[in-house]
């Protein structure tokens, strides 16, 4: 089977599992309870939030109780349904059972004939189809344009982010291995294995892995597509909920997905399954529910108010549960909403409720982390790194590409535009348009205040203030402000927010000009068409091919090895990443390449490297990867060579021997070791898989008498060379 087809099937399966649990099940459970609550996009956000919130906290609870397994997870998932059914049928269960059995007995006894039975079934099926057909026709008539455009957006997203699934099989961010490790540990009910960290995304991925038996490495390498869908559709749902025109929301969406005016860093992280990007899906719902609550007037239904506040709390909780950077951004947005809705937020009845909901959301997220911390689990190192970014001084080193002297002469606005150009926009002109559009949105908001549409104006002003704040924070080093996040991360949020700004700008202007729905629709459609033409004119981007942190061949080999060795013991000797990727496999072991080489640096007759499994695989990159700290699209070109093998094997700790030139040296050594070993064991050392870039050797040995892999391959003894 082609790996591309396998990946497509896997991503479809993972998507079905994830959306089934986080959308379909909440819809089944809440559809009657949320009937009439907001528009369809609002309910979409509500179901999605409810599903994620429930699953994450279910996993947290079971993991902290050390009882997490397939059975408890499934039971926990079905618990709300079981409770509802219990409440509903508490008094009448036996009667219903009796009735049902009675009908069944009538069929078995032949009293209900086949014809009658089929007639009844046909009738009920016909009624159901008729009802759904009516609904469908009504829905198509009213929302046909939206459905088509949503499908179009889906296709665009599939093209932009899905095409990578069939081209790149490895992890696309260096820290994914760490996430893999954490999720692997959850299998043993060992949450927070590396310290306390927001585990929201990990809980979800662990859930999909355990309940649907999808290997963790498969989920991690493919979930980014689903993550990209979720993040984009939340943006669309948010815009659909706040815009007054039908098609304006698609303007920002489409430009954001296809325009090449955005700098690569604003979207490249979507190509990796990362908590920060996944958590972005909950920022806009938090903002929407906060704004929706503040848009409520005194005569609003209390039930709706509670729901808005409840989902606001859930959204805030989810941002913090997944990644605390998202909470910071959500916090900034909430502050902006406070400014935009200043006419209402300072009323005590509103203030106390929204503050309480916010605090509750944070408490819900912090509770499991706090419990673990209180039980003695220390904070995870990257959390400390994140904190250090918060504390960093205004004099933080200036970002690369900025010329110190030049920056000193810039005004605040120029500095903001400059940073916008550096991190978010493709060129200065686009940066100016971006900053300008934030200003325009603010002016439009003020205008709508003057026109006494304060609820709508509040949205525009809130978003513009939020975006302005983000743009200023991005230039915090230049402006001498406190740096909240690692500076390059702002660009991801700013790119995401700019799409909303542009949609709302178009919406605000069109809504200013027209009032009638038909005119609004037509005009917004025209605006959308114009935006599409402009995007095509200014340039569209192609899907990015990110340089993965494993070769495609390594992932293909790993998939084959796992498939071929279900009950056998095997070892992979490779550079680091497979160690976690094969985490859940039985009888599977990993041997670090660098340890392997170091163990035979000074080989003599007593040197022994024994790997006591029946099969041992060696992964060797003939063109070693460019293993960088950051996500990149650089392509490696340097081949392993004798020159590389002549260099000493790296003494550096951790994965440093696999980074940069050190990886080339490490792989060169491995390559020449493999050549020498194959000369000694020509039949036993088989080429398992080979391409121009990569080779995997397989050695099948007798477990009772394993081979000694320590040999003199001609480049072991670098010490003499050093001395010489």
């Amino acid at each position: 089977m082609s790996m591309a087809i396998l990946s497509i099937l896997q991503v479809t399966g993972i998507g079905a599992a994830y959306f089934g649990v986080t959308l379909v099940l909440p819809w089944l459970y809440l559809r009657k309870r949320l009937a009439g609550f907001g528009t369809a996009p609002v309910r979409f956000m509500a179901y999605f939030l409810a599903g994620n919130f429930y699953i994450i906290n279910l996993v947290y609870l079971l993991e902290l109780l050390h009882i997490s397994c397939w059975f408890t997870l499934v039971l926990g998932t079905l618990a709300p349904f079981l409770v509802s059914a219990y409440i509903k049928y508490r008094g009448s269960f036996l009667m219903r059972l009796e009735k049902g059995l009675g009908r069944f007995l009538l069929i078995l006894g032949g009293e209900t004939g086949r014809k009658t039975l089929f007639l009844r079934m046909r009738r009920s099926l016909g009624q159901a189809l008729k009802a759904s057909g009516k609904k469908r026709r009504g829905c198509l008539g009213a929302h046909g344009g939206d459905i088509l455009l949503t499908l179009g957006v889906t296709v665009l997203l599939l093209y932009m982010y899905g095409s990578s699934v069939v081209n790149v099989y490895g992890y696309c961010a260096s820290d994914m291995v760490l996430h893999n490790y954490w999720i692997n540990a959850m299998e043993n009910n060992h949450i927070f294995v590396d310290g306390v960290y927001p585990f929201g995304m990990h809980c979800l991925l662990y859930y999909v892995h355990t309940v649907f038996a999808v290997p963790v490495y498969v989920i991690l390498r493919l979930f980014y597509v689903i993550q990209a869908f979720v993040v984009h559709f939340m943006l669309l749902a948010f815009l659909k909920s706040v815009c007054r025109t039908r098609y304006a929301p698609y303007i920002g969406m489409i430009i954001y997905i296809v325009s090449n005016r955005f700098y690569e860093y604003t979207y490249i992280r979507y190509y990796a399954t990362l908590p920060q990007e996944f958590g972005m899906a909950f920022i806009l719902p938090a903002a929407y529910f906060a704004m929706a609550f503040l848009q409520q007037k005194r005569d609003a239904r209390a039930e709706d108010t509670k729901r808005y506040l409840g989902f606001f709390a859930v959204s805030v909780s989810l941002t913090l549960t997944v990644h605390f950077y998202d909470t910071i951004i959500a916090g900034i947005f909430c502050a902006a909403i406070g400014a935009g809705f200043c006419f209402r937020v300072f009323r005590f009845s509103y203030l106390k409720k929204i503050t309480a909901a916010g605090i509750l959301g944070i408490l819900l997220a912090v509770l499991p982390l706090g419990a673990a911390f209180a039980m003695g689990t220390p904070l995870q190192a990257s959390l400390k790194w994140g904190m250090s970014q918060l504390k960093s001084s205004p004099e933080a080193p200036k970002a690369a590409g900025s010329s110190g002297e030049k920056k000193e002469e810039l005004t605040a606005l120029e500095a903001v535009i400059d940073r916008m150009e550096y991190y978010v926009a493709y060129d200065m002109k686009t940066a100016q348009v971006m900053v300008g559009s934030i200003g325009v949105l603010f002016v439009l908001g003020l205008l709508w205040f003057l026109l006494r549409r304060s609820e709508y104006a509040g949205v525009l002003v809130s978003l513009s203030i939020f975006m302005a704040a983000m743009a200023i924070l991005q230039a915090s080093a230049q402006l001498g402000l406190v740096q909240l996040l690692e500076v390059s991360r702002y660009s991801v949020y700013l790119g995401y927010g700019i799409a909303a700004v542009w949609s709302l700008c178009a919406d605000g202007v069109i809504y200013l000009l027209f009032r009638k729905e038909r005119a609004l629709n037509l005009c917004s459609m025209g605006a959308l068409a114009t935006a599409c033409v402009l995007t095509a004119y200014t340039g569209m981007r192609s899907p990015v091919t990110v340089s993965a942190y494993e070769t495609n061949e390594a992932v293909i080999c790993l998939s084959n090895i796992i498939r071929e060795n279900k009950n056998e013991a095997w070892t992979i000797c490779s550079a680091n990443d497979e160690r976690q990727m094969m985490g859940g496999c039985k009888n599977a072991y990993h041997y670090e390449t660098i340890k392997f080489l170091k163990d035979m640096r000074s080989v003599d007759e007593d040197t022994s490297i024994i790997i006591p499994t029946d099969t041992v695989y060696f992964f060797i990159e003939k063109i070693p990867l460019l293993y960088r700290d950051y996500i990149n699209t650089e392509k490696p070109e340097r081949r392993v060579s004798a020159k590389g093998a002549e260099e000493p094997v790296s003494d550096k700790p951790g994965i440093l021997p696999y980074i940069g030139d050190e990886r080339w040296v490490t792989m060169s050594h491995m390559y020449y070791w493999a050549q020498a070993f194959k000369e000694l064991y020509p039949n036993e050392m088989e080429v398992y898989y080979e391409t121009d870039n990569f080779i995997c050797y397989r050695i099948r040995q007798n477990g009772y008498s394993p081979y000694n892999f320590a040999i003199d391959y001609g480049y072991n003894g670098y010490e003499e060379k050093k001395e010489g």
Partner: protein
Amino acid sequence: MVSRRNFFIITILMSVVFFLCMFLNNLKDEWNDYEINPYITGTAENYPSKVSMFVPDSQEKDGASHEGTLKEEEETQAQAGKNGIVFIGREGSLKEIVREWAVCTKRGITGFLSLEEYGRAKIDMASLEMMVIDSGSIHWEQTEEVEFLTECIEKGTSLVFANLPDVSVIRGNKKVRELLGIRRVEELEPAVNGIHLYGGFLLGGEVIYQAEEEEDEKYQDMELTFPWYSLTSGTKVYMKGIPEDESIEKEDYPVVIWRKSFGPAYVFAVNGGYMEDTAGLGILSAISAEMDSYEIYPVINAQNLVLANYPGMADENREELEDIYGRSLRLLEQENIWPGVVTALQDYPAGLTCMLAPQYDYMDDNSPNPETLQYYMKIFHEKSAETGLSLENVSGMPVAGKLKEDQQFMEEAAADYEFSSCYAGNMEAADIQAALKSDMLSAVRTVVNPYDEEAISLIGYLSEHVTRQSGSGDGLNYTFRSDFRMRCVETALGYLSLTCDMSRAVYPEGEKDTWDELSKNIIRNINIFGKNYEHFEGTAISECDEHIRNFLALNFTDIKRGDTIEIQKEGTEGTVWFVLRIYGRDIKEVKGGSFKELEEGAYLIEAEESKIRILLKPGDERYYYQPSERR
């Protein structure tokens, strides 16, 4: 009341049942042409004979090996045959084994007394496949000899040390240790209580020769005393000892057979005397298969069970048999032995041959019963078992006299039956030759000898047209060493001949000779070899004879081109079989023949035509692949 119609139907049904039960059985009896030997398909002259037997190149030249024939002044350009091998060592069983293996695998062989002599002969090393060395013929104290061996390896000739030099030599000479891949001598005589033969070396898979229970200790006769060497890297172990000390790690167990790799060639070492009997044939075949990416060699492909001196036709030794078994000879053989043998064989393909003994004792007054013979011949015929004649008797009557009496009996019982095989027991070759001249044995074309531990050659020609086949194992005895030998013979020749002298059960000399005891060993042997070598063909002795004639006459060449191995066979037009041992490849198709998988990496090829093409599947394919890879 039964209606007429129903009555008629019932009658018809009963008639059908009666017909099925009685009439068909009678028909089967009538149509059983047991009186004609189905294995006689022509005279002995119709089959390949000794004249057509393959003789290795070097032997053809001199009639014997070069050993001792090379004079110092002669700088003969001795040419080893294609895929030639050289033996360095003195005359003896080891040399016989190597020569026999060379004949069986159709290799050229040249023998030299010493390395010095070999050096003078200036053998073309390019055509030399391996050098089998008796360590006793090497002057280990002479550095030049060790260096010469190293030079041979560098030139691509693999060395097989059929035995090792004294431990003091190994301990004291670093170069010898390096040559043999020995890191150090750990112990002189470690306490070992078993031997572990790893899978993938001999055909038949992994075996542990260790008595798990006390009652199994009687089977242990492997060499358990040998020096304990630990090996350097670049080695691969095929057989190890199992020390009594359980705390020792498995990878540190004392080694018995191993390989040291030097890149261009290998050094194989056998720590012990395993090469000095028929086991050597299998070890050499297995070693040869380890030396290259593939190895193809001819095999006999025959699995026989020979019940010698079974059945008896006269009511003999009645008193003793009544005492031991509570029944007469006829009942013992019909109701105990025959059902036991049939049951043991039912799941396995081994062919059965019964060498009947009209009488065991020709001096008593008990005469053989013709009806008994007819009864057995019928059931043998039904089971496709061959009926041969045993030339032995317990009363010491000369074979001529015995044959005379037997002939009289056969004329009375089955006058048309001709024997195509006979069992010679421990008779001298000359006596057998004389016996074969009798009219009764005129159609005999193969003679079976019992299992002999010291026999080197298991098959061959007794005379111009009569073959001999020796048992590769004694079916009535089982020991670990005999098991190992039989595995080796199966590996080298695809041949199993379990001979069982059933007169032991009829004239028991002790408790161990009772059928109850003997049957356990028969069943154990059949179970082990039937299960592990089920893909080899079960043959009656006369069928096996045809296989042997074709095998001995065969010469072949093979060549691998890409994914195809081509075999050109010569010397015989009959069907022959080969074993193909190949690493990491599977057979897709065999043109000019067919194939069966014996085990992972080992195939049995049936060659019907003179040119065979073995098509291999494309290299090991992966289930998941890159979209750019074409499938």
